[in-house]
């Protein structure tokens, strides 16, 4: 678990954030430190230097007696926090109020040993040792205890603050990292269950609408599609087997019959009948292939701009004639200049399919209305008839492959008309919906509505 944790992007980002925070903290520390302490020490040092220059009136060559006198004079003023020490070359104290070993020449910050003080409340001294002629040394120092305490305070505050930042950062990093990991793990787990065959599984959403939720939503949509495709495949397998059996069974009957008849004319008849059955089976398999091709979306690549109004008018003209011959009537109301991007051959097939269904299922005297118009930026096409229609509860079945509405599969055609039309509609970003066409409960008719989404205006 642990190594995986540190590989997550979350933790890496947290570490980066932590690093930046640390750098800024350090910069801040440096600024404060040198801002406060630095200034204070400079002030102190200036005071010490001032004292030294008042005593060493002639610089380092000032005679020992003058220096000693100067020290005593300074001490006589009883300065509160200034300390003096004048030693001779041998290290013997000549004057001063400080009792310690003379440090080397230069600036020093001295801390009193544990338990001791240089003077009441003076734990730390800051001073300057100046060598003067004759090997003597003058040490002038000031009480720097407060400086030291401030130093400690700043350092401690910084450490605490830094420590807290580090802890929070790490906790947050690990916390978020673990949460992210858990979300990803949920997706992986769902994936494994799906691979094992449970296509109903979906990835839970946290409801926060964050990137993980978006990912989960996309994956769920994909899973829903997979579930649908799997169901289709199962259904198709069953139905193809059944639907191919009928013509092949009849074919066998015809051929066996032709074996038994002696009359050549009858045999010819039986064989021609057999060819008819084969054609029916072939028609079915071609339709299946066409449907598969359409659903795979491969045809989109060859889409072109099409004058849809013209296409519909030609279909209307063609089927006016056919409808008349079937004892019915077709009327068309087509708005001009409807432009669509798509595949003309497939659109032809789709609309022709719908009109043919109306002609074939309507019976004598059927009136069919083909209409096309703009609906905002969309295009709507309807094929309505006054035939027996399809009951609402069987609409879904009608759009399914091979979902034949009459129990006997002996009826003409392969039952793929509506599913093919629906697949072509989907390929063109359109929806196909079924509804009743009239209020008549006996013959409600069927209205097929094709709604093409946001087509660019002509």
């Amino acid at each position, binding site marked *: 678990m642990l190594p995986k944790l540190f590989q997550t992007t979350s933790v890496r980002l947290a570490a980066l954030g932590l690093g930046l925070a640390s750098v800024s903290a350090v910069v801040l520390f440096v600024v404060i430190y040198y801002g406060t302490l630095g200034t204070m020490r400079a002030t102190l040092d200036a005071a010490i230097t001032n004292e030294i220059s008042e005593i060493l009136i002639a610089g380092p060559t000032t005679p020992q007696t003058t220096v000693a006198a100067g020290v005593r004079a300074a001490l006589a003023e009883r300065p509160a926090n200034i300390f003096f020490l004048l030693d001779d070359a041998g290290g013997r104290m000549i004057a001063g109020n400080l009792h310690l070993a003379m440090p080397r020449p230069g600036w020093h910050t001295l801390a009193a040993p544990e338990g001791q003080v240089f003077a009441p409340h003076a734990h730390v001294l800051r001073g300057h040792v100046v060598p003067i002629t004759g090997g003597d040394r003058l040490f002038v120092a000031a009480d720097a205890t407060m400086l030291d305490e401030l130093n400690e305070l700043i350092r401690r505050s910084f450490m605490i603050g830094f420590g807290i930042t580090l802890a929070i950062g790490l906790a947050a990093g690990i916390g978020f990292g673990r949460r992210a990991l858990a979300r990803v793990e949920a997706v992986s787990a769902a994936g494994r269950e799906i691979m094992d065959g449970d296509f109903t599984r979906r990835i839970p959403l946290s409801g926060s609408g964050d990137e993980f939720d978006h990912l989960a939503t996309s994956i769920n949509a994909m899973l829903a599609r997979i579930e649908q495709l799997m169901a289709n495949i199962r259904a198709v397998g069953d139905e193809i087997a059944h639907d191919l059996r009928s013509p092949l069974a009849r074919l066998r009957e015809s051929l066996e019959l032709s074996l038994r008849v002696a009359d050549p004319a009858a045999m010819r008849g039986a064989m021609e009948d057999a060819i008819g059955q*084969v054609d029916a089976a*072939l*028609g079915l398999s*071609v339709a299946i*292939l*066409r449907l598969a*091709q359409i659903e795979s979306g*491969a*045809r989109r690549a*060859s889409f072109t701009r099409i004058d849809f109004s013209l296409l519909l008018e*030609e279909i209307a*003209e*063609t*089927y006016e*004639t*056919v409808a*008349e*011959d*079937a004892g019915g009537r077709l009327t068309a109301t087509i708005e001009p200049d409807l432009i669509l991007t798509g*595949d*003309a*051959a*497939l659109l*032809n*097939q789709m609309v*022709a*399919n719908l009109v*043919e*269904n109306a*002609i*074939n299922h309507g019976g004598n005297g059927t009136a069919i209305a083909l209409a096309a118009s703009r609906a905002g930026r969309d295009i709507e096409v309807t094929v309505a008839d006054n035939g027996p229609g399809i009951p609402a509860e069987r609409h879904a079945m009608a759009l399914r492959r091979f979902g034949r509405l009459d129990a006997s599969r002996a009826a*003409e*055609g392969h039952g793929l*008309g509506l599913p093919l039309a629906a697949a072509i509609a989907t390929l063109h970003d359109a929806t196909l919906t079924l509804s009743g066409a009239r209020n008549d409960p006996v013959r409600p008719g069927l209205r097929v509505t094709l709604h093409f989404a946001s087509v660019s205006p002509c």
Partner: protein
Amino acid sequence: MIMDPKQELRILLIEDDPRTAALVRAGLEPEGHDVAVAPDGRAGLLRAASESWDILIVDRMLPGLDGLGIVRTLRGAGVVTPALFLTALGGVDDRVDGLRAGGDDYLVKPFAVAELSARIAALVRRGAPKPEDTILRVADLELDRLTREVTRAGHAITLKPREYAVLEYLMRHAGQVVTRTMLLEDVWDFHFDPQTSVVESHISRLRAKIDRGFDRELVQTIRSAGYRLGDAP
């Protein structure tokens, strides 16, 4: 007799499936054609390029060289012999690919021999009107492609657009059999099998307008094959 007896063609069939080859031979030879079969792509390409033929029938799926490649190569070499593809691939895109490769027609297996025969005749039509011919004539029937006027024995005949299109197609293929599929594909641009009598309805309308009341029936139904416009044999 399906074919115009004057058309006896030299046909090269490039096909590796012996059964298909036998069927094509059995269907076309009785009509007087000379059918040679090349059983693979390379032999086919060689014979197509080195001998003269009236028409090439090429299977798209051949071992070795593929049918499209053969036709493309021939076209590149300047061979203009009409070529018809035979194929098990029936997608509309496949048809477009075939035509783009230089083929002139495309037939999906399994096909009826009558269909193949009619399409071959259409591709090799001799005496066919040229695209520039503006007036088409069959017996006393006349069609003017510019004015879209149709007359028979001097009487003007009014046709709806689809009826006109069918008649024009029949007249451009006068004397030859035109199959239902050819009409669906070339006049209607329908690349599917309609579930209604689209072609039959329009033919019967056409008959009513241009044959009824005249001395001769020009629109003939050829059983199991299709239709033909012309004088009865």
